[in-house]
């Protein structure tokens, strides 16, 4: 028995979302099987994840706190991937963003007692600047010297972590512990709980202003990608670099700019995390947000709106996964989901025809078929 893949001429609108949901479901079944094999109880694990992440308003709020950095880093990856730039460095750009924001209050770059209305925007700028510069490095190397951006962004993640560790163990260490002094209260992003005196129901809710940053960024990125000339050019480069070159688009310039914006988005995620959730810099500030972001972007098919949804799902997994044993389960589920997603893409792009025995019909020549359009999920 052999099977053949034939490119679909028409793709029904319902097919892609259905297959995506199906892929996630299959991934959860496979993961459940593995959890069972290593002696866990998959049903209880999943029930626990649901309960601990969506079970009450309080935990839903915590889920959104975990989703916030994932939205911003997910957008960073989605933007770069849309141009088929493999920025796997959101983790490092996130860390640099957290560092840049911290630098404003820890060097300090501003006098003590600076009001939040001034301080918070300054820290946002510092975080985006630091993340953007970290993103600029692989962008410039790729554009000017043709250096593979995957290797460079990955290596920069390790370097960024060592950089953070230097500061939190060294100059900024609080009494030798691997964390800095807490930030001044003016630097804290407002939380829903801060308004409990007005709306009593907000008491104890940890959702902070960073979520708004994420939602606004998603909206802006959608406008940018779908409604601007620059965004159109980026999508064109992603779908068909050759066509973009013929159209006279300066790909190298776009590449550097996209990398810088991508880095700045991840940097903003880092700032939002230290200012909104942690209130100080630590070496273990990220449970791998920048890596999960790759999967978030892919699950969202690089669309900003869907990034928000995917980020909330993975935020739940990260939040609830902390208590699941064995500890590698959330990472494993993420890997399996990414695999089933890319396999499921095949079902969207091609019709699978199974033939019994012998050689089936040969794949017809399709000169117009663009191999890159499919993986990018269409326009």
């Amino acid at each position, binding site marked *: 028995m052999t099977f053949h*893949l034939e490119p679909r001429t028409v793709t029904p609108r319902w097919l892609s979302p259905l297959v995506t949901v199906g892929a996630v479901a299959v991934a959860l079944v496979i993961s459940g099987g*593995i*959890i069972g094999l*290593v002696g866990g109880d998959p049903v209880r694990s999943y029930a626990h994840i649901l309960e601990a992440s969506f079970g009450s308003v309080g935990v839903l709020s915590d889920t959104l706190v975990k989703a916030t950095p994932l939205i911003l880093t997910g957008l960073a990856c989605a933007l770069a991937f849309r141009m088929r730039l*493999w920025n*796997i460095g959101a983790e490092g750009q996130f860390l640099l963003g957290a560092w840049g924001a911290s630098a404003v209050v820890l060097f300090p770059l501003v006098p003590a007692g600076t009001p939040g209305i001034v301080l918070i925007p300054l820290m946002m700028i510092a975080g985006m600047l630091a993340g953007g510069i970290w993103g600029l490095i692989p962008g410039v*190397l790729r554009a000017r*010297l*043709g*250096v*593979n951006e*995957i*290797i*460079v962004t*990955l*290596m*920069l993640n*390790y*370097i960024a972590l*060592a*950089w953070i*560790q*230097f*500061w939190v*163990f*060294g*100059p900024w*260490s609080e009494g030798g512990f691997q964390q800095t002094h807490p930030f001044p209260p003016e630097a804290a992003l407002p939380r829903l709980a801060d308004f409990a005196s007005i709306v009593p129901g907000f008491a104890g809710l940890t959702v902070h202003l960073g979520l708004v940053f994420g939602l606004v960024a998603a909206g802006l990125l959608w406008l940018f990608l779908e409604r601007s000339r620059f965004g159109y050019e980026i999508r064109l480069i992603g779908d068909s670099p050759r066509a973009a070159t013929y159209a006279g688009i300066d790909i190298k310039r776009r590449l550097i700019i996209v990398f810088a914006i991508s880095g700045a988005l991840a940097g903003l995620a880092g700032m939002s995390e230290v200012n909104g959730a942690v209130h100080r810099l630590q070496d273990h500030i990220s449970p791998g947000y920048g*890596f999960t972001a*790759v*999967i978030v972007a*892919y699950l969202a098919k690089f669309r900003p709106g869907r990034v928000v949804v995917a980020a909330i799902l993975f935020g739940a997994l990260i939040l609830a996964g902390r208590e699941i*044993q*064995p*500890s*590698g*389960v*959330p*990472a*494993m*589920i*993420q*890997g*399996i989901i*990414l*695999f089933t997603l*890319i*396999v499921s*893409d*095949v079902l969207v792009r*091609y019709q699978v025809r199974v033939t019994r025995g012998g050689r089936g019909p*040969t*794949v*017809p*020549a*399709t*000169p117009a*078929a663009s*191999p890159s359009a499919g*993986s990018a999920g269409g326009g």
Partner: protein
Amino acid sequence: MDLGLIVAAGLATGTVLLFAAIGEIFAERAGVLNLGVEGMMLMGAVTGFSVTGSTGNPWFGLGAAMLVGGLFGLLHGVVTIRLRADQVVSGLALTFLGTGLARVLGEGLTNTNVERLPTISIPVLADLPIVGPIVFANQSVLVYVGFGLVPLAWFWITRTRPGLHLRAVGEAPAAADAQGIGVYRLRLGYVVVGGILAGLAGATITLAVSPGWFGDQTVNGRGWIAIGLVIFARWSPIWAAFGAYLFAAISPFILGLQGVPTILGVENPFLPGRSATFFLEMLPYLFVIGVVILGSRSAARRRIGAPAALGIPYVRGERGH
């Protein structure tokens, strides 16, 4: 510190990078980029360690590690070659999957000890002056396997008929197909070979070089370093060996810096416990960025670069890209 000991230790740690890099060279020469090396190495490392622990025989562990590495390679091969998925994304997925699964399987293995693979000395060669005791004495048997693999891989790729076919499917798959060479079959085969070698590289860590299971830290980015080395080596096993051993030999010197109290009369800022040691930890990764830049530049200048069809799925009947 004894220079000979440093070089001997460098050869052992270099063997890890060597296996992974040569495996990746096979896959990339066939036209398939596999970014899953880190994940395959972690799976090899945890499989080798845990199977050795449960059977008491490190050879079983080694075999199981290679098998699991090969299965991971097969997964990547089927997904990218048969199902034509994007090689970059599939490779990343392989790394995520390998990392997560290795952590699940490695639960409870930390702080345990298993039998190591034997260390041996090569008769006659070990008696050579200077070189003998450093290179051919008391090394893990896998180090010698590495010595043998380099010329073998070079000879296979550049001097044999199957090697010619390997290069053909990586450079011009349509032409190879027209010659009757099974493009899909060969690509799949070499991706599996790459996986087996990555699994071997992982087991080399846990069964020979630095025995023990330390979660993701066991491999700690060396899969990515191996992929960087392939670019540096311009897809040549000989240069990959040079890069792997050089890289591994430099690292202990850098760590050795931590041992001296003063450098040129100035108090050493890199003493253990000082935060400046984190700058030393950056060096291997900076080194990789450096060699990748150099590799890209020289490849561009000398017009020898990646296999022409690297990263491009082959579809019979579709126009060449």
